[in-house]
């Protein structure tokens, strides 16, 4: 009923520098717009709209995909070494799925995002930075007003986890939001060891993608508001890994994932596992990754609230990825996944499917 676009001022900088200046000038009252397929529907629902919208559409440098061949690494000092592939934040999903230099698994993943029309506008940066989703949030103003709003917009309650167990105590109306991160590309890029180049008023830096997300549905990022995702950098080191993607969604087009599973596998010469990473999307407030081959015996952190840390990850390094090991990993993934009842399909079902899809995907990767 109030699906009318709220008024805002649209800014269309031509360079990253200009964009960064605008960001600095608006002191928080702005949003970055890329393809707009995530931001603008939320605006129409009256969700946290701002007065200034800074479009990245006319910044040519954001729209390129470059292979690392012979190029010098980014001048910026980053924590991650030079890359095999640099994908601009403004690259559209159609561009990504059609580019032959992009790993097949990533192209496949991009191809299954939303629908062809949305992929024409939707961008890689927007996909990774998209807002978290929840039944009680992605609704019209009328709807949310009827419910009484929620923490993530206009309200003071969460309807998904109205009370939580914190330190053995039942706490009512915590300020915790468990809205689900439904980005398909995020877990896919994560398992390939992607890092991101961020450009903001305070300068630019490169960080691993896994460190970009924070553990709350409202405070979604561990980076500063106004940092532009300029590039996704895929390291050359994972270029030869086997990788793949499986998506669970009610329909085969249009729909967000209710579960996404990405995996990347590095095999030693004797076919034993050197590295194995599994990424999960749409089960938590952020994309989740398990790095089974990592030196430390702790998998990468998942949701800070719901995971049972007692469940130890299986050891995989040096082992053969056979049926038994695959089942062990699938079981671990299933146990750790903690989907919430705020996107379509029951959490218990999605949790079970996390195991099934992981097993299927790893079986495919093991077969080569």
């Amino acid at each position: 009923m109030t699906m009318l676009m709220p008024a805002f001022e649209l800014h269309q900088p031509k360079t990253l520098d200009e964009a960064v200046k605008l960001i600095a000038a608006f002191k928080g009252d702005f949003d970055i717009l890329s393809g707009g397929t995530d931001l603008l529907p939320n605006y129409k629902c009256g969700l946290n709209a701002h007065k200034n919208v800074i479009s990245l559409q006319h910044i040519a440098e954001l729209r390129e995909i470059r292979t690392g061949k012979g190029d010098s690494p980014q001048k910026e000092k980053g924590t991650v070494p030079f890359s095999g592939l640099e994908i601009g934040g403004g690259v559209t999903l159609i561009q990504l799925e059609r580019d032959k230099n992009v790993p097949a698994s990533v192209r496949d993943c991009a191809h299954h995002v939303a629908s062809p029309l949305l992929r024409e506008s939707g961008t890689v940066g927007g996909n990774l930075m998209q807002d978290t989703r929840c039944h009680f949030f992605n609704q019209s103003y009328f709807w949310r007003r009827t419910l009484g709003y929620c923490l993530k917009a206009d309200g003071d309650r969460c309807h998904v986890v109205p009370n939580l167990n914190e330190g053995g105590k039942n706490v009512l109306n915590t300020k915790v939001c468990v809205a689900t991160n439904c980005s398909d590309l995020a877990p896919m890029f994560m398992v390939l060891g992607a890092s991101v180049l961020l450009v903001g008023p305070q300068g630019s830096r490169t960080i691993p993608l896994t460190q970009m997300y924070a553990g709350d549905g409202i405070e979604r990022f561990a980076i500063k508001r106004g940092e532009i995702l300029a590039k996704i950098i895929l390291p050359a080191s994972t270029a030869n890994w086997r990788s793949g993607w499986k998506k669970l969604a009610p329909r085969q087009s249009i729909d967000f994932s209710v579960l996404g599973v990405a995996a990347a596998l590095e095999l030693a010469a004797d076919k034993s596992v050197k590295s194995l990473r599994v990424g999960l999307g749409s089960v938590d407030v952020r994309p989740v990754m398990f790095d089974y081959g990592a030196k430390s015996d702790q998998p990468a952190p998942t949701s800070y609230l719901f995971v049972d840390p007692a469940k130890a990850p299986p050891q995989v390094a040096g082992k053969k990825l056979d049926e038994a090991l695959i089942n062990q990993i699938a079981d671990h993934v299933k146990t750790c996944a903690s989907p919430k009842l705020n996107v379509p399909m029951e959490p218990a079902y999605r949790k079970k499917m996390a195991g099934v899809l992981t097993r299927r995907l790893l079986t495919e990767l093991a077969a080569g």
Partner: protein
Amino acid sequence: MPIVRTSGLTRNNQQLNRGIPTGGDERAADSKAPTLTQEPPFNIIGQRMPLKDAFKKVTGEGVYTDDMKFPGMLYARILRSTEVHAKIKRIDTSKAEAMPGVRAVVTGKDAPNKFGVLPVSNDETAMAIDKVIYAGEPVAAVAADSEDIAAAAVWAIEVEYEPLQAFLKPKDSLKETTPELQLHDKVDKAFPKSNIHKAVDQEFGEVTTAFKEARSTPNGTFLFDGINHGFTEPHAVLAHWDADERIILYTPQQVPHYTHRALAKVLELPMHRINVVRTMVGGGFGGKSDPFPHEMIACLLAKRTRRPIKLTMDREETFLVNRGRHPSEIKVALAFDADGKLTGMDSDALIDGGSVGSFGVVSTYYNGVLSNGPYYLPAFRYHGKRVYSNRPASGAMRGHGSVNPRYATETLMDMAAVELGLDPCELRMRNFLPENCLTPFHKFRITSNGIREGLQEVMRLSDWKNKWGKMPYGRGIGVGCGFYISGSALPIHWNKLPQSTVHLKIDMDGGITVHSLAAEIGQGSDTVLAQCVAEVLGVNMDRIHVRSQETDLAPIDLGSYSSRVTFMAGNAARDAAEKIRADLAAAASKLTGQPAKYFDFTGEKVVCRSKPSVAVTFMEALHEAQAERGALIASGCYQAPPLGTEFKGSNAGLSPSYSFSAYICELEVDPETGFVQPLKIWAAHDCGRALNPLAVEGQLEGSIHMGLGQALTEQMRYRGGQLLNGNFLDYKIPTPFETPEMEIVIVESIDPEGPFGAKECGEGGLAPIIPAVGNAIYDAVGVRMYEVPMTPDRVLRAIEDKKRLGK
């Protein structure tokens, strides 16, 4: 012997012509073939032709209400209840009225007269008065200079509510309650203190004996989520109170006539001061066939401001207006003898009507009585209740009232076949009603019936015999059958008027204008009327102009619902054309000296049958006929013959003719995820005669697509009284990926009373697909699905339960 013809559309829209011919001679030689005024060969009838409005639609030239603009036009928005069930303590509109650009604010008190589509349940008002009964009910409305102003102004209206206990489970609505908690002051007479809108009890034949003596008595309780029509065009209306003190309402209505009546009641105006103009309809499926509060609201604002008012809804509001298929709990038991003959049925339906009556009285009857076919049923017991609840209203939706019980019956038929060791198709064959019969109790008059031929053909095409029960785990094939009315034989408003009237006007330009109030809602009613007229007069389609929009111009027709237009308005159009034809034949006779009865009308000529060299052109005959008289005009009509019998409610389900369908679906079930992927559907439908096979195929493919949505993905989900998924992202209409290849088999049984032998094909084709899917799931993985839609989590749970319980 009905004629079967097949054609199939593959996904890339190539046409497979299976080449079973529909030779006119075969039919003429058929002893059972009825006598029609027009015998084949035909010029226009039976030809594949695009719908008359197709080009306007695909080029974007078609004008929908929201495309229209008038000078000085204002925009309206509705304030909707944010409470599920509450008393309205106070409404203060002063802040909204004071906003710049706001021109008028109206509330429920401005139009207290009640209305509703059925005279027996006039329980709606334009806006809530004193009480709101669902989240989303209109409470007030604003007209302003822009949509933004109107949208802001509605939230400036202050409403103080006092919440009441909400009725969200149908079982709660059955209980006795206080008058304050009754949703309406008028409820079913037998349950005066409840929220039961309508109760129906019928028992015929020896039901108890049938069950006592039965060899097989499959039974089950089936749950159905509510579903919405999901038409493309959201509701949009435009009203203008003009300088002549008349109200003109532009509205994409399926039934302009009922809106016309309701407006007169609410606005307290004589009908002749109201002109209802049906605009292009972007899909209806039953969801645009009630007179609606928003139509009243636009008129009230137009009256207040004397300026044109446009009111366009968004998708969520359209979902809240709803009138979709009832959420239902249906308990059915069937009795069979050792030969697989159906001997009895006992069924109990509890259907959730939501906030208002709508078509609900009819729905309550249909949920029971439409189980008296396509099988012979010698004993029948039905208890049906429709309750009011604090949710958006259910109403009529494609296959009205027949779809959910059909799923239950067809599933139980399958269970009986398994138990009795019979092929499910064979079991059905043993039970089909014959042609030319009356059903034992309700006296449904079955004239033509091509269901046997249809089922045989889809069995053959699908290779049923080699597939059923013989495919690997995870792959299955299933069957479902059904039948449906070709229009209701009795009108909603009791009167002696014909159900359809059509006027024709032909002037010296040779153009033929067809005036009718049958609403073109995308189903092709304009085209079918034009075809009927063109065939009788032997002219090309481009001469025919259908004007089916305005109540000012068109004779009354009861509109586009219950699959009545082709049968009833088609017959009326033919009737009118016959009258013109007689005039033209007389003129040709005058010009040639041959007796009038010897003339054939074909290829734009009037030709003497015995001497084909003696002929005049259509235009020559026309000009002769017009001499000293001017334009030719004629009025034709249709009224259903007296049918049925006499007991309370015996008119429900009566129709001058019934369509029949038999579907087979092959699919794959992923036993680990529960996902179901339909692979192919073979669908046979007996539509009497396909006046335009292209349109028939379109209707059937559309029905199947819609039915697949209900079968697998579509459901209206609620949190308390709030609809959770009132948008097209979260309400899961199947995409092309979920829609398999379909092979459509048109069965032509040539109905004796339908125009050129035609009967319905717009609704009956929906119901059979759902049980065909359910039965195929059983064939694939051995589980019966008692909940619809059969979503992956439900299918998986059934598979796991079976593993765990070993049954």
